[in-house]
């Protein structure tokens, strides 16, 4: 029966099958690059097949079986990417894990997933896994990619990736049947099999393992390819966590279905430069990445010569006025075209080149809502940045903005094959081929999220814009609240407005059931540090800088501007910021204040900084706080601070008529 399947051109419904197909039809085309020791190493699809097959056979020799789970832990390295189809070929399920999770978090995931083999990047991860090995009863082997520092590790469970491959190759060379058996294993796989289990960090509780089938991921990927006309000529750079569904979709599923090349950067710190060298055509990033790029640019421009700065400002204004219209192919006067063209040569071109976004044809921001100002900034430069609304539970795609139909405040139209409905509480629900199979070993949670008729609750509140037919997300359904007065309070909306300012790195807004809105802010050390240097503000530490009266003065101006802008929007005007404070430490995922995907955990922060949260509403002008922090090595310490609180002026709602006239 297996032979019959082999003879017919099988359905391309699993990743190993797609791999064989890519090696057949575009074997010499580059499938993967990795910059190592300063040089781009290259693998064609045929090379990748060879590497994966050798590793897969090696895994079989180590006893990996159908249904086993294989943890993948580390940065974006080719071998870690190869380990996934290698496991799938044997019917095993890859479980990518966030590489920066501390040992305890990792232990939970590996234990819960009953991982038998862990493929890890380097010594750091080996140490982490070995330190929790006694809790992982099903773990049989640990395979590492980078051998440095591991020479003297004598451990029976430990193998190098190359060694496993070597054994696989030797085995295949000794007996021609081995390869045939392997192909039969591949042929046995089907679309209904699990492709991957992705643990979502979630804003509350333990991570949940989202089970996605091959069909879920592959059909969604194909639909995504069609939606954006992706071909095998794309170049992407893989730099986001392997455990994020986006990376699985963009760097594996879409690459395997479209046949394009995925590039692995040299290190996390070199991504921008590596992206520039490669000239990526298809890009995706959470808003944070775009925010950071913008902050860096603004800081650099502050240090540039006066002439440059003036030119930069002038052409950014030109771009703000015309850039989006030109990108949306709206009619604009000839003079605008000319001016914009000049700006392209003098400012936008060099800027895009610096961002490594010169050749980007399709760029997505996903994972979290992006600040409209930031979004418009990139679009005005002529970068086709679009918003995508998705979830792990949807195999990414729910809605996306089609080319030339971009509205900064919406997330676009339903993707191909996706149906959407809004329930009575305003919650967005969807149904699509990408709908997940369930949470691994958690039927209860699955039932909470998936309705009996197959719809998935997103947990986000939103509505369809009547003018454009695009979906508009306000906030998390449970986070959109009301002030005591009953006025709408959408914390994320306010936070995003604040975070537009390069000086403000993070904002946490409070106000649910209260009389007014107040915020806690994090300053951006790069931006504010550079400002301090220019203005001769002396500081010895982050804490001192954050509490500096002049910094407060500057930040107060930003908050004031946000209030003015809120006052222009009748729905939001009541939610102007009455009081704010600047936190004495940076919010950090290691302390649980941010999720691993860098979203603020509002409730947790309110608890952790309870004295501050109280002081924001009891009228006091300052408050003392001491917080426990966890250092990277797991040790704990306590930070104490005296934090000042500022009162802000609020503005009456600007007249509706006036607003319309302005537009």
């Amino acid at each position, binding site marked *: 029966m297996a032979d019959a399947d082999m003879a017919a051109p099988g359905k391309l419904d699993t990743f190993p099958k797609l791999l064989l197909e890519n090696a057949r039809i575009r074997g010499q085309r580059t499938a993967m690059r990795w910059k190592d020791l300063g040089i781009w190493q290259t693998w064609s699809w045929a090379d990748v097949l060879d590497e994966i097959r050798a590793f897969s056979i090696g895994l079989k020799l180590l006893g990996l079986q159908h249904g086993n789970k294989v943890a993948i832990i580390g940065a974006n390295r080719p071998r870690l990417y190869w380990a996934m189809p290698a496991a799938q070929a044997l019917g095993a399920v890859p479980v990518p894990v966030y590489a920066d999770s501390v040992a305890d978090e990792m232990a939970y995931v590996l234990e819960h997933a009953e991982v038998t083999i862990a493929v890890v990047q380097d010594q750091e991860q080996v140490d982490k896994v070995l330190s929790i090995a006694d809790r992982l009863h099903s773990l049989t082997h640990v395979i590492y990619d980078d051998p440095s520092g591991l020479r003297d590790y004598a451990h029976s469970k430990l193998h190098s990736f190359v060694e496993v491959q070597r054994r696989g190759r030797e085995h295949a060379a000794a007996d021609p049947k081995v390869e045939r058996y392997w192909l039969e294993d591949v042929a046995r796989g089907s679309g209904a099999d699990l492709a991957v289990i992705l643990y979502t960090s979630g804003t509350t509780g333990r991570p949940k393992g989202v089970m996605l089938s091959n069909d879920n991921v592959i059909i969604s990927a194909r639909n995504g390819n069609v939606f954006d006309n992706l071909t095998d000529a794309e170049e992407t750079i893989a730099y986001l966590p392997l455990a994020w569904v986006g990376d699985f979709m963009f760097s594996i599923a879409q690459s395997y279905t479209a046949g394009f090349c995925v590039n692995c950067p040299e290190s996390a710190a070199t991504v921008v430069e590596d992206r520039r060298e490669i000239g990526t055509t298809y890009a995706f990033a959470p808003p944070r990445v775009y925010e950071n790029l913008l902050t860096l640019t*603004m800081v650099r421009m*502050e240090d540039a010569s*006066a002439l440059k700065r003036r030119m930069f400002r002038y052409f950014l204004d030109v771009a*703000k006025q015309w850039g989006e219209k030109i990108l949306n192919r709206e009619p604009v006067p000839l003079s605008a075209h000319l001016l914009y063209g000049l700006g392209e040569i003098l400012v936008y071109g060099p800027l895009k080149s610096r961002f490594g976004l010169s050749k980007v044809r399709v760029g997505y921001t996903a994972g979290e809502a992006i600040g*409209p*100002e930031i979004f418009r*900034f990139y679009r005005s430069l002529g970068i086709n940045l679009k918003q995508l609304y998705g979830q792990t539970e949807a195999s990414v795609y729910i809605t996306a903005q089609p080319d030339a139909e971009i509205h900064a405040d919406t997330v676009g139209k339903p993707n191909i094959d996706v149906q959407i409905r809004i329930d009575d509480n305003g919650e967005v629900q969807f149904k699509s081929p990408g709908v997940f199979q369930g949470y691994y070993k958690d039927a209860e949670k699955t039932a909470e999220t998936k309705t009996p008729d197959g719809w998935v609750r997103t947990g986000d509140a939103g509505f369809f814009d009547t003018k454009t037919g695009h979906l508009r997300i306000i906030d998390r359904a449970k986070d959109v609240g009301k002030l005591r007065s009953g006025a709408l309070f959408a914390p994320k909306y306010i936070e995003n*407005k604040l975070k*537009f*300012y*390069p000086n403000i790195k993070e904002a946490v807004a409070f106000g649910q059931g209260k009389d007014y809105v107040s915020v806690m802010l994090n300053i951006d050390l790069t931006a504010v540090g550079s400002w301090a*240097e220019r203005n*001769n503000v*002396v500081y010895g530490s982050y804490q001192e800088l954050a509490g500096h009266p002049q910094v407060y003065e*500057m930040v107060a*101006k930003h908050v004031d*501007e946000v209030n*003015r*802008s809120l006052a*222009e929007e009748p729905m939001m005007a009541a939610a102007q910021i009455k009081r704010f404070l600047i936190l004495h430490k940076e919010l950090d995922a290691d302390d649980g204040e941010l999720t691993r995907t860098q979203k603020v955990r509002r409730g947790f922060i309110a608890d952790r900084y309870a004295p501050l949260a109280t002081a924001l509403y009891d009228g006091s002008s300052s408050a003392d706080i001491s917080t426990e922090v966890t250092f990277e090595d797991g040790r704990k310490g306590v930070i104490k601070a005296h934090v000042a609180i500022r009162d802000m002026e609020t503005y009456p709602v600007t007249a509706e008529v006036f607003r319309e006239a*302005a*537009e």
Partner: protein
Amino acid sequence: MSDVAVANKPAITEGQRAGLLVGLGLAAFIVLLTALTQFGAIHRGNLIYDVFVDPFVAMWTGPDLLTQVVWEGLVGGVLYALIALGFVLIFKASGVFNFAQGIMVVFAALSLVGLYEIMTVRLGLPAGTTVAFVALVGALVVMFVLAFLVERVVLRPLVNQHDIIMLMATVGLTYFLIGFGEYVFGGSPKVMITQQLGLPTGSTTFEIFGGRVNIQHLDVAAAIIATIMIVVLAAFFQYTRIGRALRAVADSHKAALSVGISLNQIWVIVWFAAGIVALVTGIMWGARSDVSFALEIIALKALPVLILGGFTSVPGAIIGGLIIGVLEKLGDFYWGPLLGNGIENWLAYVIALVFLLFRPQGLFGEKIIERV
């Protein structure tokens, strides 16, 4: 629409304000002069007119002449730049202000011509290109020996002494070279072996702006050779191991020593490089006039160039040289008659002095920022 206000900074800084004021003042002055001239309030013979209006009118009405003057200024500037380059090389690598750089130019040129003379006249070898190039190689050897001896006899024993002592040592070197040169090659001016070295001599006249501009082939050759040399030097600095070592020494002696770079070796190389630059400069300059110790005066023009360009900047030396060269020629041609000629001898220093008032660190020198 929410507004995008990025930074709240004063519209202009102190420096910009000063620049703006000077610019406005200048514009007002020009308008005033134009008006005065238009209404016949000032005219030829009036001092203000002669100084501030007439030269510009002459430039405007005779663009061919202006082109000629600027070209000659540029050619002179290239030679100034080369001398300054020699200074900068040595100053960067060893912190020594080499007073002898100017005399090295003369000494190098004298060695070349002297060796050629010795070979053709005393040894009776046939005059021509071959012997000229043998003499060129000989002159290079002389410059290398000089570099080696300077390192051994002057720098090594005096290492770690005060800058002023090093400067005095190079002053001593200057007078030694003058005496030694005169003793070996004789004191009379010599003629550069321009043709024997294959350098072009004729000139071409172009018709532009309804007038004529005459360009000496030798000047074109000088510009080309100087450019090539600067590019080769830059590449040498940027891309070779020794170039890297040279930059290392220029940055930190201590660190260079700790990685095993020998300062003594670097000094020989730098002085030799400066010697090569001197030889090329000497050939170019000698071909325009003749070879004698009178050239030394011109070598001192490097000082204003250095003030303009900064003592440690190679691009500064080049740009500074060109600026001084052009301004000097313009001044001499258009304003010279007013001041009884001879202006060329001191104008460069005045320009440097004025410049010093506004930007003491030089054109390309690092602005010194005190960090808190």
